[in-house]
């Protein structure tokens, strides 16, 4: 479903990687590995369509990303270093506005359920400003669940989470992939996905 061919990426004048390619189908996960500064985040941003590769092409359902913008926007969800939530809005407002921007209606019940699942049932009505870093990360994860996307692209999803939070993310990813979804992620921490071995792709030398 998602395929990448001959990808290359330059930062400044430095060539981060080149001739990178992979195929990912339904029910498959891809773990991108590589040390700091090797271009993992750059690769994920290319896969999201946020930046253009110096060479190569990314295809979703056979169409290059530039052409598939609308469909890809609906079927892909990205969680980056920044959480992508507004500090002045409550977690609930954050989820509902994010959904509306993606062209979906999200009713209060579903949003509440998602926030409860990530363990935020007590802080639903506070502005996100007063939440801790880990809690804000959880809001972003709840957003990921309610996005209803087929492809998840996760950049360091485990940062800032406690042990219980890490287990929750692992469970989330596993459930998503087992249900036929696709997931691409990077992580510096060990990631245990019960009964599921992700493909790996190493970036840089």
């Amino acid at each position, binding site marked *: 479903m998602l395929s990448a061919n001959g990808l290359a990426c330059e930062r400044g*004048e430095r060539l981060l990687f080149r001739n990178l390619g992979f195929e990912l189908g339904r029910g498959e996960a891809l773990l991108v590995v590589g040390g700091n500064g090797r271009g993992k985040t750059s690769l994920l941003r290319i896969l999201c369509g946020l930046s253009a590769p110096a060479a190569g092409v990314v295809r979703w359902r056979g169409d290059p990303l530039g052409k598939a913008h609308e469909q890809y926007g609906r079927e892909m969800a990205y969680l980056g270093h920044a959480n992508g939530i507004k500090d002045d809005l409550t977690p609930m407002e954050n989820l509902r506005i994010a959904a509306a921007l993606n062209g979906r209606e999200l009713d209060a019940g579903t949003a509440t359920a998602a926030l409860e699942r990530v363990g935020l049932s007590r802080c639903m009505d506070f502005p996100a400003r007063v939440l801790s870093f880990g809690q804000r990360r959880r809001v972003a994860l709840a957003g990921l669940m309610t996005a209803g996307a087929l492809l998840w692209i996760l950049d360091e999803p485990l940062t800032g989470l406690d042990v219980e939070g890490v287990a929750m993310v692992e469970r989330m990813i596993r459930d998503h992939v087992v249900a036929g979804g696709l997931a691409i992620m990077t992580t510096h921490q060990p990631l245990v996905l019960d009964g599921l071995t992700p493909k790996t792709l190493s970036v840089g030398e």
Partner: protein
Amino acid sequence: MNLYHYASPSTFYPLAGKLIPWFAALAFILTVVGLYIGFFVAPTDFQQGEGYRIIFIHVPAAWMSMFIYVVMAFWSAIGLAWNTRLSFVMARALAPTGAMFTFVALWTGALWGKPMWGAWWVWDARLTSELILLFLYVGVMALQAAIDDPRRADRAGALLNLVGVINVPIIYFSVTWWNTLHQGSSVSLTRAPSMAQTMLWGMLIMALAAWMYTIAVALSRARTLVLERERQTEWVRAQLEGQP
């Protein structure tokens, strides 16, 4: 042999190196001829006396300031459309020279205005437009200087340049309109009362000299930019063995 061949930095660099002396020499010869016509052949103007001789520098500079902005926009558009790195380099290499000519046009305009209008600065439509053009040049250069990543700097500068070039006619129109409403007609700088044939020739030759100068300087600046950007490549390393 196709266009892409010349668009490759490794071909451009030595080619530009060979061309620069020729354009510089042409600029020099044309300047000498133009100045000779301007100072020794063109007759004294019966209205403005010898003071009108400033047009031999003012008018070509004003033309160049506008031409260069349009040429920059042309390279910017090519760069954005076909993603050719050399076009961005050319657009960037032209900007300082364009700003320089704009400044010269303003300076000579002021020096001409003083004896003609009795003031160093008059809010004349042309001078005002020229001033705003200088601001546009400064904007593009400031934006490019503020961005560290050359790829982003190129594209951002090109976009601003294109927006500017769409706006220039509107700005010029609005300023002219504003000027006619506020002060009626005044002595126009560029319309010398009795444009003798020789004056026209002098001006055209000086303008041509300015073109040649611009090409030489822009190519030279582009060469330095190319050298900096391609420093990782083999051919630049080979070049560094020689003389600057």
